[in-house]
């Protein structure tokens, strides 16, 4: 098996690192690499920012009036 370049390995772990789903060993491996590699640390910060940005920009509040329409559906019978 060919060992991955450390930055490629870090990239491989990155999404799970952000999701906090790595094993303790993998977490330590990523953390150690990020502490000493500006290239990957910058990409880590970028990925983290991107996740938050997508979450906030894609969220659209319920339009006014929809709740009232849903209220009107209350009491619907299984046979109607």
């Amino acid at each position, binding site marked *: 098996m060919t060992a991955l370049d450390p930055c490629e390995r870090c990239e491989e772990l*990155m999404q799970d690192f952000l999701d906090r789903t790595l094993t303790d060993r993998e977490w330590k491996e990523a953390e150690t690499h990020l502490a000493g590699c500006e290239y990957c640390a910058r*990409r880590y910060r970028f990925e983290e920012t991107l996740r938050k940005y997508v979450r906030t*920009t*894609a969220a659209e509040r*319920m339009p006014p009036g*929809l709740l009232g*329409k*849903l209220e009107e559906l209350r009491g619907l019978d299984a046979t*109607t």
Partner: protein
Amino acid sequence: MGDAEPAPEARRIAQEARDRVRFEEEALGLADQVYRVARRLVGSREEAEDLVQEAYARAFRSWRSYTPGTNMRAWLLRILTNLNVDRGRRMQRAPDMQPLEESDYYLANKLASAGGEEVLDQERVVERLSQDSVVHALADIPSQFREVVVLVDIGDFTYADAAEILDIPIGTVMSRLHRGRRALKQKLAEETIA
């Protein structure tokens, strides 16, 4: 002489009416969160409103099948995603293309090679990626990947909840999520870098 005790049947009916009101109140309290997911699953605000109304109509009709104390948000979203799949089938859209397999750093590397490493810093990211580009990119990724990205990254559902909502194994949620996020970054790169 005091009032007679209500008959057991009357008590049962009164209890059921209270349970139903409690169910409806709880469901309506989640409407904004349900809408946020619906809005990113479909193409327009009108479609999202229709889908949410259809989902609530079905939920209110079948309220007895909800188990109190379980995750109602996931239960509602399961109804909504099933309805959305049925709609997709009715519209007989062309099958989704499989996204290309770009690397996780694809967008970061594209931005960095176009504008330098500093472009990746927090405030510059927001400058480069407009809200429209995020919305368009999300709408553009294949639906089976989009629904997982929307549930986990926008709806804040856990992998386990997303698996239950979509009725797929948790491993499938994880692989679709990874591929969906990569596809999103690829679309964002196309939208952002001329």
